[in-house]
């Protein structure tokens, strides 16, 4: 196969030189290629040949910041400029081609200092499994790249990226395995060789199918090999549960690991985001998910047409179902189980509270975790966490902030040094989680309070909507330091969270006015400032928050009242959102149907089964950035236009998460 690859690669390289304006690329890599062609034939099986190149490339060639910001660049950016890579083989050139056709500027920037992928390349050096799968991947990507580069560049890259994510964790796992048991290692190269030869001919879809089959086979083999009988059944429910979501699939795509470990961390994160929310109008996927779901729930029948893509289940039987088989669900840690039940029952509401509860449960679960024999902690723990997360999702769709927290946790797991012992690793993970809760949520709230209180002057009338714990803290603190102001609490059905806030404020002696959301334009005339909480803020400045927030912000805007949004920076999200339809959560429709109306009782009973009558209980809405005057975060007070900047700058430096 190697001789075959050589001739194939040459025309491509020529094209690189032709397309891109980068001068060094035609000059330096060509001799290299000619060198590497034969060299590869020799070294393709040896693990060492790649490691220097990987280390060599990444410091020099990764453009620093561009790929953090925009999609295109980020796809192209991790691809190193071919120039200095003396040991880079065709793949480098292959990538350079993509760079050239996509974004020449990026590759021109290639000489600037490296970004954050030091850790990736560093542990990749010692990896055993890389080489082969690299070449396999490489050869697989040729047919695409060679024929129609401009059109299909993206597809191979995507797959490469996915694979690359797996590379770090997987590589580590293989390392452990190699030391642990010889026979699996011995079996693997054979398998991979097989796939390699297969992949050369197959299309992308076919390749993926093969991967899947391989993965399943491996899982089965492992299950058999393991001592405990329960083991074999154990990985299964957790693993397939991840399939609907690519981000979970990624770590599983083990068998073909490419040498593209130099892909930026940012890319891995992107794959890790629970961004591809399951579209529930996709029948096949829903069925798949249903088969492995822990919670038995029936889709409610009378759904609003616009929201078919969101899950909506018949309430009432979920909780009994779940609590009845509490002892049979051994795959879910009891702490996580408890949090899931609390989410389902609505005992924990509010984004921060939910996030903290979830993280504490994970902490507990990690503490109780023991790595099963013949498994790698990183891999297995990630799989476990994934299982927990999918369980939590079944209980209630995750909020954006929880998604961010999970991402953080997975990053931490992935970044665990290989040589750490299990108790150490667990301790470090738990302390990291604790640090996240303290720094990103609790301390951030304190900072936000300090900032926001400067915006409250004597004699003001502050309006707030629903219940936000940050806003509550702000109001209480402002009251404590002696500001004289009045609070207007706007509330809405069906949750009536405002009453909770009202209760707390009134007992603390604040002067309150309580009203409902319909009256907001009546009361807005006397309001001087609006304080709102947030569930998430997207990078286009859209505020994603409890439904009704947009109404309040809009009316405030119409009355020229400044709207101040208080949001911890960990809730920022790089997704974008325009409307409230595409991404939302459906609550219990019965909560709306049940109305404290005098003569309603018998009426509603008869109407319940009518196909024409639907109740829509939206949980969130999105407020356009134009209604927001200011966002108070732990990084200071910023306009909504600065959200993408914060997301980009701080996430790059790993400060955000």
């Amino acid at each position, binding site marked *: 196969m190697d001789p075959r690859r050589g001739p194939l690669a040459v025309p491509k390289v020529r094209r690189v030189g032709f397309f891109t304006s980068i001068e060094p690329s035609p000059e330096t890599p060509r001799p290299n290629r000619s060198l590497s062609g034969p060299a590869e034939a020799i070294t393709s099986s040896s693990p060492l040949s790649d490691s220097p190149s990987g280390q060599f490339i990444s410091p020099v060639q990764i453009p620093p910041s561009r790929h953090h910001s925009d999609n295109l660049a980020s796809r192209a950016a991790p691809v190193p400029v071919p120039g200095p890579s003396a040991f880079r083989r065709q793949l480098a050139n292959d990538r350079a081609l993509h760079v050239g056709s996509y974004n020449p500027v990026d590759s021109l920037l290639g000489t600037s200092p490296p970004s954050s992928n030091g850790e990736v390349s560093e542990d990749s050096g010692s990896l055993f499994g890389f080489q082969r799968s690299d070449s396999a991947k490489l050869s697989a990507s040729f047919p695409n790249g060679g024929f129609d580069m401009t059109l299909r560049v993206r597809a191979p890259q995507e797959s490469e990226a996915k694979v690359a994510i797996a590379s770090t964790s997987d590589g580590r796992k293989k390392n452990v395995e190699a030391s642990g048991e010889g026979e699996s290692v011995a079996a693997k190269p054979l398998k991979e060789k097989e796939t390699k030869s297969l992949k050369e001919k197959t299309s992308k879809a076919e390749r993926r199918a093969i991967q899947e089959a391989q993965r399943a086979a491996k899982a089965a083999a492992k299950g058999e090999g393991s001592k405990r009988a329960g083991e074999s059944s154990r990985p299964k429910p957790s693993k397939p549960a991840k399939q609907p979501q690519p981000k979970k699939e990624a770590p599983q795509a083990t068998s073909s690991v490419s040498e593209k470990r130099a892909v930026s961390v940012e890319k891995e994160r992107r794959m890790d985001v629970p961004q591809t929310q399951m579209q529930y109008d996709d029948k096949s996927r829903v069925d798949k998910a249903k088969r492995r779901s822990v919670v038995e729930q029936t889709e409610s029948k009378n759904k*609003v*047409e*616009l929201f078919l893509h969101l899950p909506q289940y018949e309430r009432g039987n979920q909780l009994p179902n779940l609590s009845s088989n509490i002892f049979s669900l051994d795959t879910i840690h009891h702490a996580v189980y408890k949090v899931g039940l609390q989410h389902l029952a609505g005992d924990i509401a509010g984004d921060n509270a939910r996030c903290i509860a979830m993280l504490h449960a994970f902490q507990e679960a990690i503490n109780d975790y023991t790595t099963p024999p013949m498994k790698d902690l990183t891999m297995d723990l990630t799989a476990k966490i994934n299982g927990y997360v999918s369980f939590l999702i079944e209980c209630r769709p995750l909020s954006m902030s929880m998604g961010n927290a999970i991402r953080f946790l997975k990053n931490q797991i992935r970044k665990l040094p290989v040589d750490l012992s299990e108790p150490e690793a667990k301790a470090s993970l738990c302390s990291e989680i604790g640090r996240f809760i303290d720094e990103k949520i609790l301390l951030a709230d304190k900072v936000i309070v300090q900032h926001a209180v400067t915006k409250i002057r004597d004699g003001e009338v502050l309006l707030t909507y629903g219940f936000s714990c940050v806003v509550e803290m702000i109001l209480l603190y402002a009251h404590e330091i002696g500001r004289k102001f009045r609070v207007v609490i706007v*509330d*809405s*059905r*069906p949750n009536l969270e405002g*009453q909770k806030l*009202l*209760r707390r404020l*009134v007992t603390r*002696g*604040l*002067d*309150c*006015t*309580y*009203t*409902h*959301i*319909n*009256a*907001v*334009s*009546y*009361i807005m*005339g*006397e309001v001087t400032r609006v304080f709102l909480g947030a569930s998430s803020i997207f990078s286009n400045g859209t505020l994603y928050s*409890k*439904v*009704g927030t*947009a*109404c309040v912000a*809009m*009316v405030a805007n*119409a009355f020229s009242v400044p709207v101040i949004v208080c949001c911890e920076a960990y809730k920022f999200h790089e997704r974008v959102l325009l*409307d*409230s*339809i595409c991404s*939302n959560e459906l609550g219990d429709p019965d909560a*709306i*149907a049940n*109305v*404290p*109306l005098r003569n*309603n009782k018998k*009426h509603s009973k008869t*109407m319940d089964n*009518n196909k*024409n*009558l*639907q*109740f*829509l*209980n*939206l949980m969130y*809405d*999105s407020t356009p950035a134009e209604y927001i005057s200011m966002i108070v975060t732990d990084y200071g007070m910023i306009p909504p236009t600065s959200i993408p900047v914060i997301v980009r700058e701080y996430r790059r430096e790993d400060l955000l998460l």
Partner: protein
Amino acid sequence: NYKRYLYQRVFLERLSYWAFVSAAQTLRPIKPPASHYLVFLFNSVSLSPEYSLSTSSPHRSPPSHSHRKMPDVQSMVLEFVNKLRKRKIEGSQATARCTVELLRSVISHHRVPHANQASALIDAVKAVGAQLVAANPVELAVGNVVRRVLHIIREEDLSLATAAVAGLDLLDASDDDEDVNGKGIGYPGMSAAVVAAAARSTLRPPSLQTLLEGTPESATVPYTSSSGADSESKTADKSSITRKLKHDVIEGVNQLIHEIAGCHEQIAEQAVEHIHQNEVILTLGSSRTVLEFLCAAKEKKRSFRVFVAEGAPRYQGHLLAKELVARGLQTTVITDSAVFAMISRVNMVIIGAHAVMANGGVIGPVGVNMAALAAKKHAVPFVVLAGSHKLCPLYPHNPEVLLNELRSPSELLDFGEFSDCLDFGTGSGSPLLQVVNPTFDYVPPSLVSLFITDTGGHNPSYMYRLIADYYSADDLVM
């Protein structure tokens, strides 16, 4: 008929001017001390503490001049006033119907003096109307209907007068009219020539010459209809004219009743012009007009989807939704807070108004302004349905507060929990919890795309002119 039409045109041109002037005088800004705890209505200041509305307020004795009416009429008036005061009558259409029926019986039972019948009737109606308006100042339909009735009286009177003047003109030419005996005598301060000039100016088509010529005449002849009626009522045969006037007025009032009763159908007839297939319509609160409108479109085999905002805290939307479903419409109930989220998928917002002001502003169920703002933001047409009895000739000042009514806080909060925090006007506890529960919302005309009344569709900017057709300028202040 043609003469009458022409006469009306000239007359109304002047009236609309008067409407402007008097409205400007009437609606002088009042700055309330604590705006939303008080209910203000123009210069009839009725202070009602925030929570007293749920309790019945003491009954005031009716003004003195009701002694002229028959006792049963008086008791009817009292009963109706009580109902209004206790907010027993729901909906402006029901109120309007009750009011106009009451006024009809007032008119029919009123013993008309031989002289000045029209003004006597007007006084009687005004007296009753003042009581009714004072009983529920925010129910503008009452005032509207009273003004409509007054307008009918004036109009009938004028038409009789013009008929008489026409007869007069005829008399000048040929002396064989039957009314000759009543003519010429008893004009206290007015010569026949002046009357003739007045008549001429009314009868002639409104050309530029008429307008120029008419200016000095209208200066000498007071042009308000009451004085005209005052003088001219004597021209005709007293008994016959008396009977005729009253009869005509009652005819007119009956027509008004008919009109109010039939405004739903009139409006609903236009539904097919505005609702097309597969439309998504958002509505808010419960309005019979909207219900009929939507159902009319449904009957015309248009299939569309309706989103109904539930309209907390009264949840009128649920009632409407059930009605709609019972008639086979695809209905989705959403929370009020989801209005902004859903409006981007809505093709049209259709709202039933509580009242339409002369500037084109709308007073509607609470939450309407929010929906209107959201509709404006998303460029969704905001359509207001209003029967003609909802057209109010007044120009609003601060209507969110002054034309609003605060309902019981028990609809929002359970009394038990927060009762020690609530201030009932007696205690002065420092942590004062106030509960604001307004009934109405004001939508400025700039947010309204279209009005659909029983006479057709209109722009907000046209409403003042439409309204001027229904009312006399003299009645704006009651």
